């Protein structure tokens, strides 16, 4: 569900081109429009803020006053979710699987994208369209063959198996973004290096990879989110609780702690924190990557 849908989210606002206009343009809708936009921003955020606020309260106070404020802060819910609710394990598993999958798919895709951008032949053109066609494939529909494939390798109920599936499913998007970037780099760079006696591999590592760092950052961020959030694959491919990732862990948790509301909110916050951290850390890189892609 994720790959195809998220692709165009790399499309940012085009940077205004040409000389900056002096005359300030009046926005459509004026003050009423601005108010509407900010009201909608509140509508987008309040449910998420409620999630955080309610996680710092206690279940009895949630019951007696559903609209109350989270003061004084109570951390019991987090302690309970993290230990009794096994979120400590789920969190570590999710982190291992997601980081491993993103790293693997980024490394192999960067290599492949370099070759696809630089080799001009029918074979590589066809290969590229095969990879890109993967953007359109609803991979979740292949869950049964994937299950039996992993079963054949002894990788059902294994974090490694899940990681490999995610790494593979990220290849089309990563290649799509990275190939575009490699194509924008002037071939003169490599010619100079070749005269200095560098081979393909040295050229790739020392010259090309540092040049596409912003694109790599974009790929890492945009692949991290859907993998961290994915639900169907771990639901089907993992059996034992100590291997669960956060989304599947949540379903078990919601079954077992269904009346401990504040812990439920805490579980939801734990599931979301890495995405918020990623977003705060990487916003700058994402924007840099996007504008670099649009300036050509």
């Amino acid at each position, binding site marked *: 569900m994720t790959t195809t849908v998220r692709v*165009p*989210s790399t499309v940012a606002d085009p940077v205004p081109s040409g000389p900056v206009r002096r005359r300030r*343009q009046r926005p*459509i809708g004026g003050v009423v429009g601005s108010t509407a936009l900010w009201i909608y921003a509140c509508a987008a955020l309040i449910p998420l803020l409620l999630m955080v606020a309610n996680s710092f309260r206690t279940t009895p106070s949630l019951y007696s006053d559903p609209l109350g404020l989270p003061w004084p802060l109570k951390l019991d819910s987090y302690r309970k979710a993290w230990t009794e609710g096994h979120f400590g394990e789920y969190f570590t598993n999710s982190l291992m699987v997601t980081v491993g999958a993103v790293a693997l798919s980024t490394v192999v895709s960067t290599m492949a994208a370099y070759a696809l951008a630089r080799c001009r032949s029918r074979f590589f053109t066809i290969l590229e369209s095969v990879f890109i066609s993967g953007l359109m494939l609803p991979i979740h529909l292949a869950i*049964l063959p994937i299950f039996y494939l992993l079963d054949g390798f002894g990788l059902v109920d294994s974090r490694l198996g899940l990681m*490999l599936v995610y790494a593979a*499913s990220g290849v089309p998007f990563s290649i799509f973004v990275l190939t575009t970037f490699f194509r924008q780099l002037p071939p003169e760079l490599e010619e100079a290096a070749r005269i200095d006696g560098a081979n393909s591999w040295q050229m790739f590592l020392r010259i090309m990879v540092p040049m596409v760092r912003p694109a790599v950052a974009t790929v890492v961020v945009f692949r991290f989110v859907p993998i961290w959030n994915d639900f169907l694959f771990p639901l089907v491919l993992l059996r034992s609780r100590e291997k669960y990732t956060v989304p599947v862990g949540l379903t078990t948790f919601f079954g077992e702690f269904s009346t401990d509301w504040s812990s439920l909110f805490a579980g939801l916050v734990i599931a979301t924190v890495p995405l918020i951290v990623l977003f705060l850390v990487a916003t700058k890189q994402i924007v840099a990557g996007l504008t670099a892609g649009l300036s050509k």
Partner: protein
Amino acid sequence: MSRRSGFLFVAPALLLFGIFVLYPMASALSYAFFAWQGTTRGGFVGLENFVALFTQEPFTTQLPRAFGHNIAFFVGTMLIQNTLGLGIAVLLHKRARTRRMLQTLYAMPYLVSPIVIGYLWTLLLSPTFGPVNALLRKVGLDSLALPWLGDPSTALWVVVLVSAWQWVGFPVLLYGAALGGVPEELSEAARVDGASHWQTFRSIVFPLLVPAIGTVSILTFIFAMEAFALPYALGGSTGSPAGATDFISLLFYRTAFENGSTNAIGISSAIAALLFLVIFGGAVVATRVLRRHQDRVAA
């Protein structure tokens, strides 16, 4: 770069992609044409699994119902999420200073996992302690403080609204990019000729947005047909209450993994194949219609 070293660079990605994506995708279709005994593949049965979907219970009732919900989900998302998204993008267009900030705020909910969003709304809409109904009661709208997710007549629309709420930032971003590509001179010329904002939008900007609207519609269609995690969190794998939030993907999941039938794999693969056909067919038809429209505009 030589062809040989080029191939060495591509090989790891091709291997990974071939084994874990291409091969399973290709065999997924073939699974539907065989009879299965548990996990062992039996003989080739042609279209028998597909026939079973349209002649055997529970599929004769559940398949059309679930498909109807997918369609309702698509239509509802188009009407609410994408219309609202277009409106917001238009309002944001000339607000250079606050645009980036607001776009980021609107994007926050769709970074969060659909499963988290689903569970969050089951809590927020809870009839016992949910802040939504508490708020409605506080402002005197007691008659609206209903068990929204517990009532079969409203549950599907809760799914649609929650999803629209989560994803609205996405069309805002796409339409924003498309609006940035509309030449300023065109709308300025229209305004000089005395056209109102609305007239300019309808006759100048909107036709130029059609390709973007088409793209958003196709992506929404694929998204709506694949809906799984959000309805799972809101209504469980059976689409409760009373199947009111059942979707094709949930039916597929139940048939494949929760149903004791010996031919579970054959039947569920037939569901997956049908769904694939709908998604792929829908996307192809939509792309063709869109291209024809663009040719007409260009001519």
